[in-house]
């Protein structure tokens, strides 16, 4: 029998070195204590509202709706949060929790740099030391975010091992945590890793679906028919889905990064091309070879360029409660440009994967149906790489 703790169906668990076990047990105990604590929740809500700028807008994308000619499209504007992405929700929660636990130092992995920037921001705000691990490849793709993190007082370590992308940054952050535990909290950026991280991150991100629900009821007097979000590890998607899971009539769709296509090796679509495995502390779906070696993955989006997916998504996939679809680089780039042109909103290239799927399904849906797309982040950071994709050279 496998451990029942932190399981979503068969997925999840705590597959980590013994050195870290007491750290995650301590974290779980602290989280159980503070999540029910009125003062903690009041402090967090204050940070959400006054610092991060919540609640984020639920915006009716009228031009996009008219242009596609089908379902009504709303955008959940997580890109308008302070630091420009949904990542701040989780980070403020974890940093506050770490502070209450007496930790003085935050470490984190980052792919696109959004989680690193958010962590560096929270560390500056709460006067904590901060070290961010980022794949060397990503420090090049996202040079501006590296500068932002340093500006915020964080140290940025370029990870050169393996494929020098997000998975290697996660591995290196775990290694750093085993080196230094007593004063350090690993502020994990997605609904992944060992228990209790998938649960903690989901709970802090659940504010997204809580707001969508009340905003939608206020605007339309009913729930949306479809909620779409992009999925790498899957934190903005889990946050967007969570409060709708019991509302079975609401269709939940996660968009994975297919890179150059699910029939190529240059893909990061875990559900479409992976199988069950054990890695980075969790049992879930992973892109891997026949001997269990973790496969190098590829996507134009540094934030979705990860060979696994959070364990609760794996479970939602198996049970059929959520559907996961692959979106290619080409589709995402077109959606990136489309939303910029149509609504004057430049989405993160990650979020553009969700926009691309809405473009596919909205025209075939009746006008009274409603789609909510979570725009998980803003796209300024991606302009250079999209320009490069289009063959345009710009100086950053």
């Amino acid at each position, binding site marked *: 029998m496998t451990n029942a703790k932190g399981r979503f169906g068969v997925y999840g668990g705590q597959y*980590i070195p013994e050195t870290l076990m007491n750290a995650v047990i301590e974290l779980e105990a602290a989280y159980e204590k503070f999540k029910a604590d009125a003062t903690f929740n009041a402090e967090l809500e204050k940070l959400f509202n006054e610092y991060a700028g919540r609640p984020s807008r639920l915006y009716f994308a009228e031009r996009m709706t008219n242009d596609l000619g089908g379902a009504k499209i709303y955008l959940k504007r997580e890109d308008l949060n302070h630091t420009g992405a949904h990542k701040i929700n989780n980070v403020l929660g974890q940093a506050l929790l770490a502070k209450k636990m007496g930790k003085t130092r935050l470490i984190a992995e980052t792919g696109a740099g959004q989680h690193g920037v958010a962590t560096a921001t929270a560390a500056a705000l709460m006067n904590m030391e901060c070290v961010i691990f980022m794949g060397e490849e990503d420090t090049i793709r996202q040079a501006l975010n590296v500068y932002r993190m340093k500006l915020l007082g964080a140290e940025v370590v370029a990870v050169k*091992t393996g494929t020098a992308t997000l998975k*290697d940054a996660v591995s290196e952050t775990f290694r750093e945590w085993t080196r230094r535990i007593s004063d350090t909290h690993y502020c994990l950026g997605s609904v992944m890793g060992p228990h209790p991280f998938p649960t903690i991150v989901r709970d802090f991100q659940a504010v997204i679906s809580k707001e969508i629900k009340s905003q939608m009821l206020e605007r339309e007097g009913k729930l949306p028919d479809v909620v779409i979000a992009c999925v790498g590890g899957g934190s903005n998607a889990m946050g967007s889905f969570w409060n709708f899971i019991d509302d079975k009539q609401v269709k939940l769709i996660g968009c994975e990064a297919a890179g150059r296509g699910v029939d190529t090796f240059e893909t990061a679509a875990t559900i479409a091309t992976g199988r069950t495995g054990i890695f980075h502390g969790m049992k879930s779906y*992973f892109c*891997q070879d026949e001997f269990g070696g973790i496969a190098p993955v590829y996507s134009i989006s540094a934030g979705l360029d990860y060979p696994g997916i959070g364990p609760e998504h794996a479970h939602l996939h198996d049970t059929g409660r959520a559907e996961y679809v692959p979106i290619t680089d080409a589709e995402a780039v077109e959606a990136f440009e489309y939303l910029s042109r149509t609504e004057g909103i430049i989405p993160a290239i990650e979020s553009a994967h969700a926009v691309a799927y809405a473009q596919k399904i909205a025209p075939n849906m009746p006008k009274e149906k409603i789609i909510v797309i979570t725009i998980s982040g803003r796209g300024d950071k991606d302009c250079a790489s999209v320009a490069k994709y289009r063959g345009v050279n710009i100086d950053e």
Partner: protein
Amino acid sequence: MSKIKNAFAGGKAFIPFITCGDPDLATTAACVREMVKNGASLIELGIPFSDPTAEGVVIQNANLRALRGGTTTDKVFELVKDLRRDVKIPLVFMTYANVVFGYGAEKFISTCAALGIDGLILPDLPFEEKGEFLPLCRKYGVDLISMIAPTSENRIAMIVREAEGFLYIVSSLGVTGTRNKIVTDLAPIIKIVRENTKIPCAIGFGISTPEQARAMANLSDGAIIGSAIIKILAEHGSNAPKFIGAYTKTIVNSLRRKYDSNV
């Protein structure tokens, strides 16, 4: 009960680690035979994994060299089959949970048993998750080795009471790799271990010199050395076996000499 306890029957045990296929499997086979010839008590054979999260940079690079050279789990099994024609000392695999899971846990563990692998060390499989493979390990008679870390504290007794084969005591915080000094106060940890089990325990992580090995073996029943051996391989490549034989001899001599004083 496997024959792992035999490794500790002749005094303090020396347990070297080697990544299979670094730089190639023929070199690994020659190194293992040199280790045996020079007195190694038990050998940890590492099956390379793409993302060895508990390893420092030295063993990470060994894993990458082995994988780039085309080493697979099936080829490591072939290596063991060859070794078992003449190597009689206990052999254990050290790898990661997904190498076992991805191969098919039953197929992997039954193959281990058939080839004469005595135990399995999986650093990303803590006490709470050992149910993942323990029933199969029991079924086929392969010991699932437990690890104790400097941070284990209140968990030591619980882990030790159910431990099989030998206990792997992690000397230091952090990942594998040589260290100038081992700062953890290991004596209180060993005391709890002794109170809760009769199986032998060996200390690993950070050990490279004969002096460190002797000090760690004096505290416990043996010393485990990995990164220091991999460094020799990285330096000498396919010429490494004779150097690894000489290194083994140095360590074994330091463990077997009689010492009155505590070092």
